Every structure is written in structure tokens, then in C-alpha cells.
């Protein structure tokens, strides 16, 4: 038996006492009229009725009033809205579009811009580029990368990968194109990526020569190798060479370099002319993790120091060359930041417009309803009551509109993710979450 809101225990005892005294007086009156006491007790109780039910009924008075009125207001509101389908549909649709669009864009913004990368200590990760007077943003050169890595005092570690390319794999079903990538061994540990099977590269494997080992992506393992639990040791036939698999990576998002199917140690390329030439910049992406507590200016100064030394030592390639640092997080999303924010602003305006529109509709409607309000006031409705009922009406519209909008947004999200250009980073992580709903409401 649920006791409603404002019922207190004292009231409970009082009611008990009241009922008891009622029964006693009833019995006494019967006895005075000549009834047998035992008979009187029974008939008095029978006439009173079920004590429990009476108590319950009395207690219910304390919870129902506002709830009752709310139910009334809601029912009335729904009825009124049903009577004017044109208005209701227009209002709900407008709100739905506004809310749906806003939550969609907000979700995208949230997952692309606001969430940080799924690497541990992602805030300390920095992208390292070089710049020359005639070329302000270059990928690092291989020898520079190695010197920076060896001589840095501020970075815990610097790792690198080369922008992925394609090779042909000989498979039982015929030749297949496979995306390959070259990484420095410490990239995995720096980004907190641990293999689900096998291992990643050891430092001594990171060199030119035969016996090139491979680490494959989770998707490749699942799709091409059938998720074979004994995949370690199997060989792949790539570009005519036979490559042993030494590790399987965990499932990963699509952005570089994890979209590649097969990874090799980057040291394999060390002797190639592209790599050994310090003046050459063959598309190597260098990522470093700052020591905890190291500031950006300290890091920049450290890099400058090393570059100055290199500039003196190798003036032909490195004179005037500098390092440009950027936060990895910002770099990944920066290209789209302006566009996304503008989109968000635009959609926010749409929502405002939609709300204004609906408010307008409501206003024009209430002018028509002047007569209805006058009659209700004459019948005894307090202004507060009428106001409350209007609020309930508006709330109903907002709730329906909001729900519709969210449905629209979630329906639109999936095709949006599929259709968008591949290289918007992290769009595949976009999803509706509770925060968006709160904002929408």
C-alpha cells in the first residue's frame, strides 16, 4: 500500500485514533439504545465498513490532487491538440527537424572534436613536422627522425610510421590488394596497443634484411585468415615474398595508420635511397609523447636545440630547418574544425528558428482561444490553472517533437556515417548519447 507524498506518520496515528473513537462512540450509542455489547461491537464495525479501505481512501487524498489535475490537464491538452491536427503536425514537425538536426550535428561534433583520441595520455602526444623556408610543413626525414629520437630530452619516446601503400597478396581465391604500413616498433607501446595474439616488433627486427616479420590488423585476421587461433607463424605471400605473421592487433578505428591490413617494421626501409637521404622527406609521420610535466615551450626549445645542431652538422640539407609541433588531437580534427563548428552554429540557428516558429504558432493560436479562456475563467478556473494547462500543452508538443527529432537523428546517423568521405576522422564513432538528448530538450 503506497502512501502518497505528504502523508506523515503522525497523520497516520491520528487517523487511527479518529477511527477508533468513531467506533467506540458508535458502539456506546448502540448499547445505550439497548443493544447487547457484543452485538453492538459487531454491528458498529460492520456499519463502519472496512477500516483498512477507509484509511486508504483518506490517505489517498494527500497524493492525488496535483496528480489528478496533471492527468486532467494532459488529457485535455491531448484532446485539444487532436482537434487541431494542422497546427499540431506543423509544430511537432518543426521542432522535430530542429531538434533532430541539432542533435545529429552535435553528436558528430562531440565525437569528432570533443572526445580525445583513444590512446592513453593522449594529451601528451604530439605530431612532429619539419619546416624549411621554402616548405613550411614537411614530414620528417628518416635520419632527422632518428637523431631527434636519440637526442631528445623532453620526449619520452618518438615513434614513426610511413603513410600506407598497397601491395598484392597471393591468396587462394586469386590476387588481392592489401594495404601495408611501416611502423617503428615502439609505436604500438607508445599508443598503448597490445596484440591480441603473438607480439609486435622487437627492436632488433627493425632493420633491413631478410626475414621481414609482419603484424596484421584485427580486421584482416578476421576476414582473410578466418580468425585462425593458430595464425601466428602462418605466412602471407606478398609481392612474391613469403612473410611470417608474428602478431595480431586488437580492433582499431580507421584513421591512419590503423586502416592498414599489414604492418612491417619501418627499419626495413632504412637503406633505401628515400630514407637514407637526409634531405628527403618520404612521408614519415612522427609522433612523440612528452614527459609528464613538460611544457610546450620546453618541448619546442628542445627540438630547436637539436635542429640547430643538425643544421650546423648538415648544412646542405638542414640549414634553416626547424621542427613544427602540433597536438595530435587537434591535428586529427583541425582540418574540419571550422566547418564543423560552422555547421553546429548553423544548426543551432535552425533550432532557434524552429522554436520561434512554434512559439509564433502557439501565440496566434492563443489569440483565437481568447474566448475559450474567458469562458473557463467564468466557470471558476484560476489563472494559474489555465496557465498550467497551457504549459502542459506546450510540454506535450515539445516532448513529441523532441522524441520525433531524436528518432530522425538516429535514423539519419547511420547513412550519414556511411556516405561521408572516408577521411573525416572518427566519424564512425559518432553516436547519440544522453548529453545530446539533454541539450535537445
Amino acid at each position, binding site marked *: 500500500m503506497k502512501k502518497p507524498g505528504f502523508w506523515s506518520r503522525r497523520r497516520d496515528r491520528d487517523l487511527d485514533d479518529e477511527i477508533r473513537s468513531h467506533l467506540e*462512540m458508535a458502539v456506546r450509542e448502540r448499547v445505550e439504545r439497548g443493544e447487547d455489547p457484543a452485538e453492538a461491537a459487531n454491528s458498529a464495525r460492520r456499519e463502519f465498513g472496512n477500516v483498512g479501505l477507509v484509511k486508504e481512501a*483518506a490517505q489517498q487524498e494527500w497524493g492525488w490532487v496535483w496528480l489528478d489535475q496533471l492527468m486532467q490537464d494532459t488529457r485535455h491538452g491531448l484532446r485539444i491538440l487532436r482537434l487541431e491536427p494542422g497546427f499540431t503536425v506543423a509544430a511537432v514537425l518543426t521542432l522535430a527537424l530542429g531538434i533532430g538536426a541539432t542533435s545529429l550535428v552535435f553528436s558528430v561534433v562531440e565525437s569528432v572534436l570533443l572526445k580525445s583520441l583513444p590512446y592513453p595520455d593522449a594529451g601528451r602526444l604530439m605530431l612532429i613536422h619539419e619546416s624549411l623556408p621554402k616548405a613550411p610543413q614537411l614530414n620528417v626525414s628518416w635520419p632527422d627522425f632518428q637523431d631527434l629520437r636519440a637526442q631528445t630530452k623532453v620526449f619520452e619516446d618518438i615513434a614513426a610510421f610511413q603513410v600506407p601503400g598497397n601491395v598484392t597478396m597471393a591468396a587462394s581465391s586469386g590476387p588481392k590488394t592489401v594495404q601495408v604500413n611501416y611502423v617503428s616498433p615502439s609505436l604500438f607501446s607508445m599508443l598503448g596497443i597490445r596484440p591480441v595474439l603473438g607480439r609486435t616488433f622487437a627492436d632488433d627486427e627493425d632493420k633491413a634484411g631478410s626475414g621481414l616479420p609482419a603484424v596484421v590488423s584485427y580486421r584482416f585476421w578476421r576476414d582473410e585468415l578466418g580468425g585462425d587461433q593458430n595464425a601466428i607463424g602462418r605466412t602471407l605471400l606478398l609481392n612474391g615474398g613469403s612473410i611470417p605473421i608474428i602478431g595480431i592487433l586488437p580492433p582499431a578505428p580507421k584513421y591512419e595508420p590503423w586502416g592498414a591490413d599489414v604492418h612491417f617494421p619501418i627499419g626495413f626501409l632504412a637503406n633505401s635511397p628515400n630514407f637514407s637521404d637526409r634531405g628527403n622527406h618520404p612521408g614519415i609521420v612522427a609522433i612523440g609523447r612528452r614527459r609528464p610535466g613538460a611544457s610546450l615551450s620546453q618541448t619546442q626549445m628542445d627540438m630547436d636545440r637539436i635542429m640547430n645542431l643538425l643544421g650546423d652538422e648538415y648544412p646542405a640539407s638542414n640549414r634553416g630547418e626547424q621542427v613544427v609541433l602540433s597536438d595530435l588531437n587537434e591535428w586529427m580534427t583541425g582540418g574540419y574544425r571550422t566547418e564543423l563548428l560552422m555547421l553546429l552554429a548553423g544548426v543551432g540557428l535552425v533550432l532557434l528558428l524552429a522554436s520561434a516558429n512554434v512559439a509564433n504558432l502557439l501565440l496566434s493560436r492563443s489569440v483565437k482561444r481568447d474566448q475559450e479562456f474567458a469562458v473557463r475563467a467564468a466557470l*471558476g478556473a484560476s489563472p494559474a490553472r489555465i496557465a498550467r494547462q497551457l504549459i502542459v500543452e506546450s510540454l506535450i508538443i515539445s516532448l513529441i517533437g523532441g522524441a520525433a527529432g531524436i528518432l530522425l537523428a538516429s535514423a539519419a546517423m547511420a547513412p550519414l556515417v556511411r556516405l561521408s568521405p572516408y577521411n573525416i576522422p572518427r566519424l564512425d564513432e559518432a553516436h547519440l548519447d544522453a548529453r545530446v538528448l539533454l541539450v535537445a530538450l
Partner: protein
Amino acid sequence: MPKTERYQNRIELLQGTLDLLILQTLQWGPQHGYGISQAIRANSGDILRADTGSLYPALQRLGKKGLVSGEWKVSENKQRVKIYRLTTAGKKELVSERSRWETFLQAMSGALNPKGGEPL
């Protein structure tokens, strides 16, 4: 201008009449719950019964609305009884309820005996 309120459904009608009867009974003096139910029965010639399942909720309701106030007193028999009285607001409400009731009776009478029609 006296406030008139339209009865919206049957339940409300019954609640309204019981409340009116309670207020009217209390006009003749403070009374406890048992006494009120006896008075209503007696004054209506034993036709109207205020059963406890309606009476006590009604008393709670009227108390919440501030139309009656309840006090615990000790009777001659050394027992605790709760005595209800009309508040000032209750007196005003009684007047307006009565006039509304009169209006209602007249309206019903008029509706049931239309002028110029065939006598039923």
C-alpha cells in the same frame, strides 16, 4: 459575482455534495466525524448516508483546502476525539456552495419541466 463551477463528471458531483453537507453540518457547531455522519443521516430523513469511505477522505480534503480545521480534545469519557470546525474560509465557501446548489436545483427543475410542453 458568485463563482460558479461546472460539474465535469459524476464523481466530482458526489464529492461536491458531500463536502457541502459536511460544511453545512458544521455550521451548527463543531463536531467529530461520527457526529457529522449521524447528523447528515438524521437531517436528511435517513435518506442520505455519508459512508466512512467517503466521509473521512472528504474531511481530509476539506482540511487541506483550509475550509475546516481539526482539533484533538478529550471527551467526558476521557477519550481522544478529533473535533472539526468551520474556518472563515469554510463559512464563505458554504455560502457560495449553497447558492450554486440553489442555481443548480432551479436549472434542473426548469429542464425537467419545460414551459409550453406536454405535461409528462
